């Protein structure tokens, strides 16, 4: 169904750094607030941004979807947040983990750290750790705020409070630098969060996007939609020569020719750039039959078996 021209995929993956920078800026538009020590509290804050970005970041133009979810699900009034869940499902179905690859400021932060020229390690052997983020999503974001409540029925936002490094990077530290009242509140919890941030920073230098792979509940949520999202990766089996360059280029340990809709694929397009024949590309909409998951595709389809390729040369 999609016939996105080849050039766009290459362009998209080449401009990704700029798009990430632009997204980080748009998500945190109110930059002067960093100096003022306040937060933007206008109407924009009622909307959730697609990536992981702390509500308490002085410059933040919107709310964090994960933070908002916990705040609402942990309050005594609403037991489930339909608006926020609905919004997240919409984003997941439209973009899936494309958001991770292009629009998340914290993902961009980790990639910038990865550019530091020190020893790099592969995360292939650590693949089982990728399951941890689903536990974080289920446990810290959904169950604990819902169930671990105080006498007034209020739960804590467990992920924000005890784990999120983006919150301490964007919220606690900038606010504490400028606001003496906030500084006075810092204690052991702040030390713990700084420790987590430091660990993520160090790991991000050695590994590619460790937080995204192992801990991010938002990435875990969007990953559930990778199989059905409108924006996805597509491999033209008629062009693929099985050279394996795409799998080698992939830093999320995904083989796009076998599993283009893998939950770990953040749609960064490194495979698109690595492919010598232009077989791998971004695609929007339900992929045509020939491009469906590579698993099970052995013979090259002929015009008789593939109605979408009528009259086209292989």
């Amino acid at each position: 169904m999609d016939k996105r021209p080849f050039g766009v995929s290459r362009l998209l993956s080449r401009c990704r750094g700029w798009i990430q920078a632009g997204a980080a800026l748009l998500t945190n538009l109110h930059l002067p607030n960093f100096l003022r020590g306040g937060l933007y509290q206008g109407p924009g804050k009622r909307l959730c941004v697609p990536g992981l970005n702390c509500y308490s970041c002085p410059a933040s133009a919107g709310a964090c979807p994960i933070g908002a979810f916990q705040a609402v699900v942990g309050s005594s009034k609403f037991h489930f947040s339909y608006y926020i869940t609905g919004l997240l499902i919409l984003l997941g179905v439209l973009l899936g983990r494309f958001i991770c690859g292009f629009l998340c400021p914290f993902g961009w932060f980790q990639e910038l750290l990865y550019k530091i020229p020190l020893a790099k390690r592969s995360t292939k052997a650590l693949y089982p750790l990728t399951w941890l983020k689903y536990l974080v999503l289920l446990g810290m974001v959904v169950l604990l705020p819902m169930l671990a409540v105080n006498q007034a029925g209020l739960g804590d936002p467990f992920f924000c409070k005890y784990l999120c490094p983006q919150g301490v990077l964007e919220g606690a530290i900038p606010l504490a630098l400028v606001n003496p009242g906030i500084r006075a509140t810092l204690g052991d919890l702040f030390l713990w969060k700084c420790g987590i941030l430091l660990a993520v920073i160090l790991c991000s230098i050695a590994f590619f996007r460790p937080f995204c792979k192992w801990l991010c509940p938002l990435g875990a949520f969007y990953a559930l939609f990778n199989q059905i999202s409108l924006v996805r990766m597509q491999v033209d089996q008629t062009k693929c020569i099985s050279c394996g360059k795409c799998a080698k280029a992939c830093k999320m340990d995904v083989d796009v020719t076998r599993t283009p809709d893998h939950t770990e694929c953040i749609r960064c397009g490194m495979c698109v750039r690595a492919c010598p024949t232009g077989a791998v590309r971004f695609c929007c909409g339900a992929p045509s039959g020939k491009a469906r998951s590579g698993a099970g595709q052995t013979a090259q389809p002929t015009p008789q078996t593939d109605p979408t390729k009528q009259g086209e040369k292989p």
Partner: protein
Amino acid sequence: MNRTKFAALLLTALFALSLAACGAKSQPDTTEDMAPSADASMQQFPAFEGKDLDGNAVNSQDLFSENAVTVVNFWFTTCGPCVGELADLDALNKELQKQDGRLIGINAFTLDGNETAVAEAKDVLAKTGASYTNVYFDSDSEAGTFASGVYAYPTTYVVDRSGNLVGEPILGAVTEPKQMESLKQMIQQAIDQDKG
């Protein structure tokens, strides 16, 4: 290279736009934020006329002038740490009453007298055993603007008899030992100043 230059130009334009946008829009939000906490000792708690949660009229002039020190606690109904300290604030209120002081609460959700919010606030106060006065006023009053500048909850102010702010506001639960110590110091300061 042209594409790169264009992209760089676009990002710079966005950057400049954001600075301009902030100048216009967020100034009203943030200057009010800084005003209370920047130099609180010279500032006044804005005068207000409002009601308590049972509908009785209150005004700040009477409230503050009747006591050597008034501790004002900002909270809201779905704020975990705020609700967590309500019982302790009630105990503090009882202690203050022996010293010519009192504690009052302002629930940010109840501004403008929103009926549901008032009912829920009373419910939470009852659940936590907090019997001290909670007041509300109009959100477009001077006090309402002051309240909208509070972004960290709970926030606690200490006010003297003339309505002046004493010391810096305490952010976060006053049940933290460090914060309780600061609060007690400011309360003592207000009481001493009142005597002298």
